[in-house]
């Protein structure tokens, strides 16, 4: 039950209003042999089928799928949280879903993903908070930083909606601010340093 942190690197990304456009600037840049799983929470309406997967599948070199309960998080795969479920990273390298109450009025919530991923991956995690009109992700990013992970925030000045990146920077002043192209470039060079 107290496994060592998963040795492989991982990436976790959260966003809300404007995040689909932002992700379209990031995920298609990742190479097919990307060395980490990419866990993504985007706030989407709960009653809709998740349209994100087909949208990104056609545009990415990495594999893109909806996260399934208890599946292993594999390198080179983007996992979107299903609508109406929280997505969590487990310390054994698998993913789990939960139907727990809304967090920050959202399910999936970015805080839930980032806090669990901070716990599961520790310093091997790179977390990104993108554009959004609320404060979800701020506490999670702080947890990522405290666990030794890399905390990145989309530059509020260029963001579609500045509230979420601004809140993340307030909660986690040590986070690095980057524009979308810099985030894409940073991530695509993960593991090649």
């Amino acid at each position: 039950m107290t496994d060592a942190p998963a040795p492989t690197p991982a990436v976790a990304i959260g966003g809300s209003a404007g995040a689909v456009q932002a992700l379209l600037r990031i995920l298609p840049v990742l190479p097919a042999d990307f060395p980490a799983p990419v866990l993504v929470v985007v706030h989407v309406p709960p009653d809709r089928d998740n349209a994100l997967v087909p949208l990104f599948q056609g545009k990415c070199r990495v594999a893109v799928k909806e996260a399934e309960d208890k599946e292993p998080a594999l390198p080179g795969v983007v996992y979107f949280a299903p609508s109406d479920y929280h997505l969590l990273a487990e310390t054994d390298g698998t993913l789990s879903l939960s139907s727990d109450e809304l967090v920050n009025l959202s399910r999936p919530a970015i805080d839930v993903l980032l806090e669990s991923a901070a716990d599961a991956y520790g310093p091997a995690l790179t977390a990104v908070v993108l554009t959004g009109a609320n404060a979800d992700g701020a506490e999670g990013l702080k947890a990522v930083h405290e666990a030794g992970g890399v905390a990145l925030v989309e530059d509020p000045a260029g963001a579609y909606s500045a509230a979420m990146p601004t809140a993340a920077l307030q909660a986690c002043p040590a986070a690095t601010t980057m524009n979308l192209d810099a985030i894409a470039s940073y991530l695509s060079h993960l593991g090649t340093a």
Partner: protein
Amino acid sequence: MRDGVEDLEIDLLLEALFQRYHYDFRNYARASIKRRLVQARDQLGFPSISALQDSLLHEPSTLGRLLGYMTVQVSEMFRDPGYFRALREKVLPHLRTYPSLKVWVAGCSHGEELYSLAILFREEGLEERTIFYATDINPTALQAAEAGVYPLDRLKKFTANHQKSGGRSSLSDYYTADYGRAIFDKTLRSRVVFSDHSLVTDAVFGEMHLISCRNVLIYFDRPLQDRAVGLFRESLARKGFLGLGSKESLRFSAHVGAFSEFDRDEKIYQRQDA
């Protein structure tokens, strides 16, 4: 770095909870349990998980307060209307051929799924021949399910879901509004047996024609999921149906061979003879 001490504290608390009270969360999916325990620690005002454990061992009233954090899911009536539509249009025509029916709502929490099924069976004229079993490990949740009272502001969503599920009546026919609460018609539970039952530690539960267990298995780790599905397999009558949550599946289960996919999209399975 991961806080190894806190993980040890969680292991010890789960062990204490099991040995002292026989509530076994040791094989629950860990990330979610940790989140709930941290929330319980903070909101119940304990400085650490160990302090919470100390209180749990020496002060039995802490148990009830902790269980509230560890078990209760907020659901909706007719959550995922497509599931209830599939029951109505595809499963009930099969069930109609039986002179008497048993339905088990496993992990009924506050009863939203139970009342949804009771209303569905009433609308389809099957209620009179059915006995519903509603089980949960949390006695407080069972009491809430037995009371059938929900905040009125949730009824708008319940009503929309009911209509989308193909409801043949108006949900307002089944409750009275009173001071911000919706009180459901007690005749809906005249054929319901409420019972304390654990999928983790308890045994097989009768010859069921339909087991509905939605968004419970996702809280279990793989071996525990296998135990629970094995329990469902043994509890189902021949050709009985098992309905899971929309993101749950038997695909990775040790018992996958004992079931056929009856409605793949809505996660409804049918027991096959071995």
